[in-house]
């Protein structure tokens, strides 16, 4: 579904990604793990066009992503739930969801998808008229994921969904990710919470200072001594 081949990217003179090649197949949950500053967030920003790649190719179902404007990427079926959730704090929950359905192809299905996400996350329905900024951290993550679903994506990019949340809420957020997987969405998730994310992913890549160091099934990575020592503290 998503193919990256030898992708470079950076911020000015600072290069953050070096020759990244990876694949996400339809129906998979793929995790990218790595330390803080390894380039995980940059990788997602490059895929969704927020940061231009400087070399390499990226395709989504054959569509070359580097050749389309950043705001068109969502129309290829990629929805990005950004780091820190980034809801519009002074818009209601429902208006946040409406912005998620901004693209013309999604507007016609707004009512249908709103019913779907409210069904998936009943808590959001209860809070539909509340300002998004007043939601709890876990509810905000729920709203950010729901907002991404409103565009009718095939692939969902999740950037550190557990960031800044209390441990008990983190478990709930990983449960949310399991639930959207069960709905048939393909997921590419980056996380520092390696132990948890390897439990919900099918495959995983290890990113170290901008380079992919390792790739394999989630079980293989979870069993690797290097990863257990460096990232799981075992």
């Amino acid at each position, binding site marked *: 579904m998503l193919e990256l081949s030898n992708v470079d990217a950076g911020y000015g003179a600072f290069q953050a990604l070096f020759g990244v090649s990876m694949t996400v197949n339809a129906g998979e949950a793929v995790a990218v793990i790595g330390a803080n500053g390894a380039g995980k967030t940059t990788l997602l920003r490059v895929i969704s066009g*927020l940061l231009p790649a400087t070399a390499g190719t990226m395709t989504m179902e054959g569509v070359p992503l580097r050749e389309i404007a950043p705001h068109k990427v969502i129309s290829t079926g990629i929805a990005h739930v950004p780091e820190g959730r980034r809801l519009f704090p*002074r818009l209601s929950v429902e208006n946040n969801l409406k912005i998620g359905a*901004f693209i013309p192809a999604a507007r016609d299905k707004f009512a249908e998808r709103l019913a779907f996400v409210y069904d998936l996350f009943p808590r959001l329905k209860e809070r539909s008229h509340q300002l998004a900024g007043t939601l709890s951290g876990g509810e905000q993550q729920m709203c950010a994921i729901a907002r991404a679903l409103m565009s009718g994506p095939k692939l969902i990019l999740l950037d550190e969904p557990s960031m800044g949340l209390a441990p008990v809420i983190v478990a709930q957020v990983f449960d949310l990710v399991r639930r959207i997987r069960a709905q048939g969405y393909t997921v590419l998730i980056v996380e520092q919470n390696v132990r948890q994310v390897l439990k919900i992913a099918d495959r995983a890549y290890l990113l170290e200072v901008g380079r992919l160091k390792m790739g394999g099934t989630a079980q293989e990575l979870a069993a690797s001594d290097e990863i257990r020592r460096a990232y799981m503290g075992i």
Partner: protein
Amino acid sequence: MDCQLDIFFLEAVLNGLLLAGLLALLALGLNLIFGVIDVVWICYAELVMVGMYGIFYAHKGGAPFLLAAAVGVVLIALAGMVLHHFVIRPVLDSAPINQLLVTGGVLFVLQAAATMAFGIEFRNIGIRLGSYNVLDMSFSYARIVTFAVAIGAMVLLWAFLQRTYIGIAIRAIAQDRQIMPLMGVDQRRVYLVTSAIGGGLAGLAAALMVLQFDIYPQIGLQFGPLIFMICVLGGLGNMIGGFVAAFIISEFIAVGGSCFATEWGYAIAFLFFMMVIFIRPQGLFGGKS
């Protein structure tokens, strides 16, 4: 000084209310532009001036007033888009002072061009609506119509920002610019639509103002500082704050002008503004809405 709680005091208060509608409309356009694009159109009142001339000449050329007014709205909406595309877009990422200076430059260009094209004499569209008299008070219909249309336009804009996709995107972009592409929103298009609305509001204000005021190239200087003061008092970019501030300032002008002398009305309003800004630099309702 002659300030008693009599019928003339009430008349001043009500006239202040009517003036507030117009000033709130003017402030709304400027606040919308600032809140969304993060740029101050210093030349906002000059766009209104150009609109007034456009409506004046359209009417003089035979167009009925309503058609001339519509021409003015469309003309200044287009002017807003042109201003954004050719002047604002190149300096979007520049320092605020550069943005102020380029729109300030447009102010002088428009004033000079209007003076060259239309001369310095005062022009009047020549439509007299008469006035409504009740008890010993008199209110010109031009002011009453202005108030009603301004309030109506603000309600329409509010509904647009609440209900339509592009309206919600306009509010969202003021809250988080960077992630708008992730929503499929083309920031450049939202800015252009916002500039057209901001310009359209200036055009509408021009259509209302030609009913009350003479037209001359420097009329922007009479209203520009007042509009900025209202916007800053309400919290620059805060549309609701600007609305409330317009009523406060209008009452200072109307009641102050009636109690002392008309000239003092503006001075008192500015003194009040200065006191507020010393105490609350972010304005009465600080921050963006």
